[in-house]
């Protein structure tokens, strides 16, 4: 008999069996708060924007679920391994990324008015006259996300067919 027994657990959806310990505190202020263990002392921090950034990242990942990870790296401006760490809460999502991702979100929202999510991947690799024939993914990789946003904004024009 192996010392590692499958018996120790059972297959079931009830609750997570390795419950992470998330110390929280009610400091009486009514604000969301969190204890962070720092140098053996509890420190009180407020981080409401972290939730909003995870929300943004999660929403982007859903909209980009048909896009290759190599293109997601370019769109989000973050290396894949770093992105995974952000998704897992192992690396903070800094303001720099959040601001860029809000523009990508805007681009995808505008794109969604004319394209299903499955078409995003192909659209990224098609030359666009307004980008001098460059593809959106090439333009974004050269730091021209704003120009690509102008292109997707034009899709909202009622005269666009």
């Amino acid at each position: 008999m192996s010392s590692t027994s499958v018996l120790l657990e059972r297959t079931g959806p009830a609750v997570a069996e390795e419950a992470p310990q998330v110390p929280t505190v009610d400091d009486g202020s009514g604000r969301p708060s969190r204890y962070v263990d720092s140098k053996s002392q509890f420190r009180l921090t407020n981080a409401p924007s972290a939730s909003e950034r995870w929300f943004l990242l999660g929403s982007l990942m859903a909209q980009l679920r048909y896009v290759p990870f190599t293109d997601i790296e370019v769109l989000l401006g973050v290396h894949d391994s770093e992105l995974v760490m952000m998704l897992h809460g192992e690396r903070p999502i800094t303001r720099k990324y959040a601001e860029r991702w809000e523009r990508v979100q805007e681009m995808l929202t505008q794109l969604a008015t004319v394209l299903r999510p499955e078409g995003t991947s192909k659209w990224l690799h098609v030359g666009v006259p307004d980008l001098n024939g460059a593809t959106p993914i090439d333009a974004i990789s050269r730091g021209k996300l704003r120009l690509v946003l102008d292109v997707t904004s034009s899709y909202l024009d009622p005269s666009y067919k």
Partner: protein
Amino acid sequence: MLTFPSHEDVVFEHAPLTSVICQVKFPPIYPLISASAVVGFQESLSGTYFAADPDVGASTAQMVNGKVVNIGQTPTTWRFIDTSGNWIVGLSVDFISLESKAYTSIAEFSQRMTDLLTVLYRVLRPRDATRVGLRKINAFEFDDAHPSEMSTMLRPEIAGVLGDDILAPALTNYASQFELRDDDDTALVVRTGPIRAGDRVSFILDMDYATLRPYPIDDSGNLGEVLREFSEGITSFFHWALLDEFKATLGPRPRVEMESHT
């Protein structure tokens, strides 16, 4: 793979199967404690599964320096249900699960689970699985006044003391559990015993095939194949555990014949 005697590929018209559950565990993704981190997964499921009331984790607290500190919190399980209410998805910081109350075939079940794992991979990128399990729970109703009738339904190894004429009438509590080792990382765990719900008494045959092998969680569909293997192992054990005369009362029909009617 555990081997049991071969059996016909049949579907039981009066199947005692009450629930089928798959759970894939992975290293914790702590942001999933928060609803905001679930949004990507939820958006990707829309159209198939819809958000249901989450199973909010329990917490314990104690006073530290005059303040109430929450020291142990079981994370919430986020739940999603299809329109029929028969398929339930669970997502927590360290697992994803799928439960069916209307199981018809492992082909449909594994396809649904594969689709869920693909969504999980695309939006949350979990690391390799720490445990993969498939569990089928059967309930056989029996006459509480004659518990030893279980000996006419199940092999004596499974019915246990409940099938004994002398012991069964005096039995107040009985549960059995054994583990059949497949390899160092994989085993079939079988749990049996009677449970009472109101006036009805059922004998539970709970079969849980699981592995600790670190399968990648991705869009390859490989875990679907693992589930099909586990399902075959469980089904083979089920056929072995039931006596032929009793099995005949469950209305076995060849699977091909049943599928041609649907």
